[in-house]
Each structure stands twice: as structure tokens, then as C-alpha cells.
């Protein structure tokens, strides 16, 4: 009876060991996982965008710096023109300014007119 039970246990154990070994071999733990090509493409795209963004930031910073320099020069020119104008204008001259005209915006263009102004 005892020998019989021992044999049964041995067989069951052998079967368990066999299936565990089979499952382990079937799982191919030595094979490396295959990378999804879409993820690779996304990673490449992210790198490119990052590089582009860095470039754009650098160009924008350069342009901003150039603009600030031009703005300062222009402001200096305006201030000096104003000073000259104030010095040149006799105090007694009637200066006609119903309201500041700074908000009106006009320039000479080479376009066909949509309408005309004439003596009203």
C-alpha cells in the first residue's frame, strides 16, 4: 500500500515537473520582445519635433532681439524728431489739434482706389 502510494505521488510529481518545464520552454524567455514599428515611428517623430521646436525657439529669440534693437532705435529717432519739432515750433503759432491723431493709420500705396475723396 505504501509503495503504491509512493509510486502514484512520484508519477504525479513527474507529470507536474514535465508540464512546468514544457510551459517554461514554450514561453521562449530567451527570445527578445519585438518592438512595434508604430512606436518607433512615434519616437522618431517626437525627436524631430523636439529638434524643430528648439530651432524655432532659437530663431524667434534672435528675431525678438533684432526687433528690440530696431524698436529702441526707432523710439530714439521719434524722441529726437519730437524734440526737434518742439524746438522748431514758435510758441505763438496756433497748433491745430482737436484730438490726438495718433490712432489714425494711413500710408501711400500703389493700389487701385475703392473710392475717392474730394472737396465736400
Amino acid at each position: 500500500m505504501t509503495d503504491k502510494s509512493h509510486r502514484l505521488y512520484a508519477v504525479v510529481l513527474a507529470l507536474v515537473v514535465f508540464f512546468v518545464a514544457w510551459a517554461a520552454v514554450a514561453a521562449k524567455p530567451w527570445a527578445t520582445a519585438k518592438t512595434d514599428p508604430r512606436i518607433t515611428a512615434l519616437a522618431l517623430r517626437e525627436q524631430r519635433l523636439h529638434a524643430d521646436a528648439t530651432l524655432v525657439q532659437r530663431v524667434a529669440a534672435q528675431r525678438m532681439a533684432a526687433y528690440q534693437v530696431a524698436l529702441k532705435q526707432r523710439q530714439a529717432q521719434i524722441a529726437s524728431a519730437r524734440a526737434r519739432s518742439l524746438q522748431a515750433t514758435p510758441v505763438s503759432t496756433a497748433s491745430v489739434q482737436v484730438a490726438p491723431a495718433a490712432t489714425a493709420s494711413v500710408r501711400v500705396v500703389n493700389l487701385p482706389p475703392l473710392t475717392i475723396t474730394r472737396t465736400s
Partner: protein
Amino acid sequence: MILRSFRAMGTDVELLLDAEAGERAERALDRAEAEFEDLEQVLSRFRPDSELSRLNRDGRSAAASPDLVRVVELALAAREATDGLFDPTVHDALVAAGYDRTFEEVPTEADAVSHQGAACGGVVHVDGLTIELDSGTRLDLGGIGKGYAVDRVAESLAVAGPCLVNAGGDLAVRGGSWPIGVEEGLTLELSRGGMATSGRDRRRWVRGGVEQHHLIDPSTGRPAESELVRVTVVADSAAEAEVLAKAAFLGGDVDVPRVLVTADGRTVLAGGLE
């Protein structure tokens, strides 16, 4: 682009609206046209039943409309700012020169009606909605009234889209950029504000063999003598441009973008347009 043209305030009016044609645009244009009519009924000196004509007849209005009060106040402020070069009390001087009815009805040639100019510079009191004119003072709000109407209509029309309102050369824009012909071969692009032209090349007639025009020099009470034929001015608003154009024509020191056409045919750009 939608264009509507009609006659108002004795001149041709153009409304240019940069919007899709449809009911909304049509309603806005209808409102704009009606607003011109309403303001003409207030400000015209040629309509006997206008509010201005009643004020000129009675010398006093105890309950003037806000529009009349506003235009009179603007005109008085302009008179002060231009040291009297612009003056709303030139009514009698215009009548004395022969401009006593709508321009279409003024005879091109007739006998002299007056050898002397009428006095200008009359006193006008404004207190709330009460306007009072000193004895013998009558107002002509033709030019500044037209500018005021142009500004008002442009403001309301802008609700429907970028627009340009042009009343016989006094114009205002709201939104967009608008190329405007000033002279043959000279176009100015206006993207904000107003523009007006004053001169002696139009609205002129002959009395007793002497040429007359509508730009009265308040210091003489007679049509102004000037080396200039016309002046076009750009300013914040059409009303302001109208005032400054007249002042510039009369020799005022006007510091705004402007185009001057001289009697010898030269066109001079000034005020930043050079």
C-alpha cells in the same frame, strides 16, 4: 464687398461693407441709410423744419436733441482749437456770398448779393440740452455735421463687418484697409480713422462777376483766398478731419497727415506721408 449708394446731406453717400450679402448686412445698411436721414433732419440748414433751422430762427432751443448738442459742442471746441479758423457761425457769411439754398439750387451765375462779408465769431451758449445763440448769430453745421454723421454711421455699420462710409469726400473706416483715391495717381490706404477734403475746386459760383466758394474765412466773412486749391487731411475721425482740412486750407498749422494741392498744380504730401 457690398456697396450701397444714395443721396443724403446734399451729396453722394457710399457705404462699403466687407461682409457676406444677406439679411444681416441689408439690415445694417438700411439702418445706416436711415441714420443719415435722421441726422440730416437735425442738422440741415436747408430744411425749414430741421432742428437747426428752428434754432437759427428762434435763437434758442431749450430741449435740443443730443445729436444737435453734440455737434454744436464739437464745432465750438473746434473753433477754439483752431483759433477761429473753423467757425460754425459762418451761416450769414455763406448766405451773403450767395449760398442761401441747397447747392443744386444755387444759380451758377447771378448779380452780386453783397459787397461785404457778414460778421462771424458769434457767441453760442450750450448748457445741458439748452442752446442759445447771441442776437444775429446763426449756425452752419454743414461740414462738421457731415463728418459727425459719417463717424456715427461707420460706428453702427461696423457691427456687420469692416466698413467704409464716404459722404462726398468725408469718410471714415472701421476695420480692414481701404485704398482711397486722393489725386490722379495718388492713393492712400486708410486702416483707422477718417479723411476729409476741403477746397475751392467745387461748390463754387459767380456773383457779380466774382467767383465765390463755400469756404468762408471767418476773419473776413468772405470766401477765403488761398494759394491752395484743396487739402486732404487724415485724422482720428471724419469730423476732426473735416475741421482740420478747413483749418489747413486757411493756413492753419495742422500737424496731421495731409495732401495739399496748390494753385500752380503741385501736390505736396506732409505730416508723415512724405
